[in-house]
């Protein structure tokens, strides 16, 4: 039997490339002009002006320009991370240069340096996100419209990779809970699934014949995990726009789970009644479950999980430290899992 489903996007809705390119040219030139007028040519003035209390800022010589002009006003005011609570930490930040050059983003290649090297053709604008499933307001939304209601804030989180290394990253974003409320999930929405962009023309890792990942990359959270105040949608880091290699233009950050749960470059969010598929669980179920909470007690067949190496590390000095349950966020999130056998639901 042939099952035909309606395509998500009608051909008539797709902007012809020539129109799109000329629009881009206008936007880019317009942005340059606007910046030139407003800030005397200094793009550093375009976002997060000095003295607003942000703890971390990208070095002035490496700041990124806005993907589109509307980003400039979006980044004009960012609330600094609240000190003393779980939204910040006194730990030493991993330097900007390491945060943007040491990445696992297999869409751009499997080596840590591949994402920064191979993301030159990545376009974060225009961007839209499809909202579907058990939700009252499904649709395809422009990123600008999605971000409009949300004020940005800084969050300084530990990031623990399952490969036994960790970083401390100053993100810019807003609570995932606020994004979810915007689309009004219905009572059947027990889980949220996220999808990364699939576009082999921009993402060379997806062109590889040898990849073992079935694209698009997908991740998921239980709805109560998703609306937890720690769950963040990040659109920037170090006071600046997200670079492609870190998941531009918007990504998830779930600090109590292993890094691969924090899916990058999100194009689709689906609300489901049953537990959704997640990429690493599909690829290696004996290594990765749905939850992937940081847990020093749960054995992993490839890397030790009771200790971690805080990056950067020099060859002759160790930055090894004990890995904490829930990556040190247990006080905030342990209650989500009360009564669950975390060794079974790993």
């Amino acid at each position, binding site marked *: 039997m042939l099952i035909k489903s309606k395509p998500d996007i009608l051909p008539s809705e797709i902007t012809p490339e020539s129109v799109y390119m000329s629009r881009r040219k206008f936007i880019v030139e317009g942005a340059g002009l606007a910046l030139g007028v407003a800030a005397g040519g200094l793009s550093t003035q375009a976002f997060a002006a000095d003295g607003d209390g942000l703890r971390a800022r990208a070095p002035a010589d490496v700041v990124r320009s806005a993907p589109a002009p509307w980003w400039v006003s979006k980044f004009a005011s960012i609330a600094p991370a609240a000190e003393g609570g779980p939204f910040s930490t006194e730990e030493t930040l991993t330097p900007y240069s390491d945060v943007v050059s*040491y990445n696992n983003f297999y869409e751009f290649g499997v080596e840590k340096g591949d994402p920064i090297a191979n993301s030159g053709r990545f376009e974060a604008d225009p961007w839209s996100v499809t909202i579907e499933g058990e939700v009252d307001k499904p649709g395809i939304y422009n990123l600008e419209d999605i971000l409009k209601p949300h004020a940005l804030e800084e969050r300084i989180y530990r990031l623990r990779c399952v490969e036994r290394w960790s970083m401390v990253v100053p993100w810019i974003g807003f609570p995932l809970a606020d994004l979810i409320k915007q689309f009004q999930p219905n009572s059947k929405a027990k889980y949220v699934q996220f999808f990364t962009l699939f576009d082999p023309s921009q993402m060379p890792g997806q062109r*590889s014949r040898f*990849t*073992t990942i079935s694209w698009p990359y997908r991740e998921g959270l239980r709805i109560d995990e998703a609306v937890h105040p720690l769950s963040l949608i990040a659109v920037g880091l170090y006071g600046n726009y997200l670079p492609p290699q870190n998941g531009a233009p918007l990504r998830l950050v779930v600090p109590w789970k292993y890094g691969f749960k924090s899916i990058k470059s999100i194009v689709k969010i689906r609300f489901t009644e049953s537990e959704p598929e997640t990429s690493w669980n599909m690829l290696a179920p004996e290594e990765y479950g749905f939850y992937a909470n940081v847990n020093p007690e749960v054995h992993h067949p*490839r890397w*030790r999980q009771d200790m971690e190496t805080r990056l950067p590390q020099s060859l002759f000095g160790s930055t090894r430290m004990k890995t904490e349950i829930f990556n040190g966020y247990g006080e905030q999130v342990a209650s989500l899992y009360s009564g669950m056998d975390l060794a079974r639901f790993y």
Partner: protein
Amino acid sequence: MAPTLRLRLTLVVHPVCVAPLLALLLAIYQNDLGPDPANELAVRTGEWALRFLILSLCVTPIRKIFDLHPVAPLRRTFGLYSFFYAALHVCVYVIFLLQFRWAEVFEDVSERPYITVGFVSFCILLVLALTSPKSVVKRLGRRWVDVHASVYAAALLALLHLFWIVRASIAESAFYAIILLPVLGYRIWLRFFKLGQR
């Protein structure tokens, strides 16, 4: 002619084999190994060990197919360099990654399959290196051939070691497998269908 060609080969081959080591030392000196240098060193030394191992296995087929007998000693040269880089790989792992915490080394070898196979592969290379001096070769006689046939097991285990650590892509392991499998096939063919021609 043969000795001079052999000499020329030696003069070219050793610098080529030492070059990766110099590149690594330079990278250490220039602090150019990224935020996790110990891991990066482990990766690079491991890659060179596997590359030289596969090169070593290619020597005999090339010698026979192209009738290029002066290349024969390269099998031993590449094999020993493979062991050299494998030993560096193990040292980097024990010294820089685990800082001599032997309990953790033991746990890794016994509980993490990719490390288990890597360890077995290294043990084979160690035996092969110890039995490669000419005096030992003479003493072992025919048995030397049998002992050194285990080099194929070492190569396959090293390949499995790589395959297991890079789960998201088989590109790198497929590249080495594409070279290794015909070489292995050729040796099996020689052994079973052209006995006495080894």
